[in-house]
């Protein structure tokens, strides 16, 4: 399916979120309808991985659409990571987590490094989920130091819309993609 959807980032995640509250009987036909309507080829703009929690407000996704940036993959706790097989509850938790990652559905990008797959990483730091957001700046630094992959942290929230400032976020994202273009 990779690269075969013509949908915008905002539309794609709007559909994904429906799965959170609709019953499978209601959700699956909608999903199939969306897949049929969105069939086409993804535009060739800069590709990024989105990490963190799926941002709410959706304006962040619209901003990325306006900048011509495509979310090629995500590491969002309420999207892709839900596909993880539940870690086994015995033994070393890190081993269990590693096992889970390897037990994930086969990925077409397997065996290629992050730097080959995308141009950068957009990290959403959710203010009201502090334990989750801890370490995001370390991830950002390590990605650059070890892999040379640039990333940008944007701040919003999953519940409190006051945390999100659209113009400031736009400046951060624009600056990030300007630096990647040069």
């Amino acid at each position, binding site marked *: 399916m990779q690269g075969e959807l013509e949908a915008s980032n905002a539309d794609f995640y709007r559909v994904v979120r429906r799965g959170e509250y609709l019953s499978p009987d209601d959700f699956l036909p909608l999903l199939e309808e969306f897949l049929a309507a969105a069939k086409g080829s993804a535009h060739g703009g800069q590709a990024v991985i989105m990490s963190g929690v799926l941002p709410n407000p959706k304006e962040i996704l619209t901003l990325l659409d306006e900048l011509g940036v495509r979310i090629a993959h995500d590491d969002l706790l309420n999207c892709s990571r839900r596909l993880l097989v539940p870690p086994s509850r015995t033994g070393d938790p890190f081993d269990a987590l590693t096992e889970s990652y390897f037990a994930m559905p086969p990925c077409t990008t397997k065996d290629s490094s992050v730097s080959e797959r995308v141009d950068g990483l957009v990290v959403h730091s959710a203010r009201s989920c502090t334990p989750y957001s801890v370490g995001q*700046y370390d991830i950002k*630094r390590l990605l*650059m130091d070890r892999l040379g992959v*640039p990333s940008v942290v944007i701040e919003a929230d999953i519940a409190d819309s006051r945390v999100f400032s659209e*113009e*400031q976020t736009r*400046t951060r994202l624009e*600056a990030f993609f*300007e*630096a990647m273009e040069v």
Partner: protein
Amino acid sequence: MGYFLGIDVGALSTNAVILDVRRKIVGYSIVQTGANSTETAEQTLHKALVMANIDRAKITSTVATGYGRISVPFAEKKVTEISCHALGAYYLYPDTGTVIDIGGQDSKIIRVGDGGKVLDFTMNDKCAAGTGRFLEVMAAKLRVSLDELGDLSLQASQDVRISSVCTVFAESEVVSLVAQNHPTEEIIRGLHRSTVNRMWSMVKILGVHGAATMSGDVAKNRGVVSLLEERLEQPIHVYREPQIVGALGAALLALGQAQIAT
């Protein structure tokens, strides 16, 4: 080939730089941003043209930056201030590896590579802590002008501790310190340290690489600069007009753009 204009519409000031084809600054201006960004941009351009002693028609290409960059109708291109500050600082001091910009309403640390390329950046665009606005509020509270802050703080033999970096809470602390009759110079030095502590927490995220260059209005404040130098354990480059660094970067982009086009 004419002249090249960079215009930086910031929260507190709007700045313009005009370059000639040899990349020499022939005119610049700094104007307080009024209620209408487009009008302020016009005034800023006019003042810079007067200084350069050229006609508007001689401007070949214009790049706008800053928060009001979308409100400059005569700019052919709009670029963020992050890219522009990096380029401007690199042009002035080619050994720049880190740019520390304290603007009117936000502050940012930019890691700069060869040619003025942005390698990474981090910014505080959420609150007034560690921005020019913080110092402006405190200067008003202490009844001193913004320009006096730096010199006054250098006269202090010690600083009082301001524990909050938040503008609202720090203002309350200042009220208490005034009530306790602490010397104004010491309070100001404490406020500067609070600003520097806020900046330091951002600097630590990216680390200091190469020489540091400071831009933005607060760079004119010798008190803040000297405390930051102490913290960084290295001297900081400050241009004589640190507010125009972003506009200078925009003008350099305007020139580069015109050269590509011809």
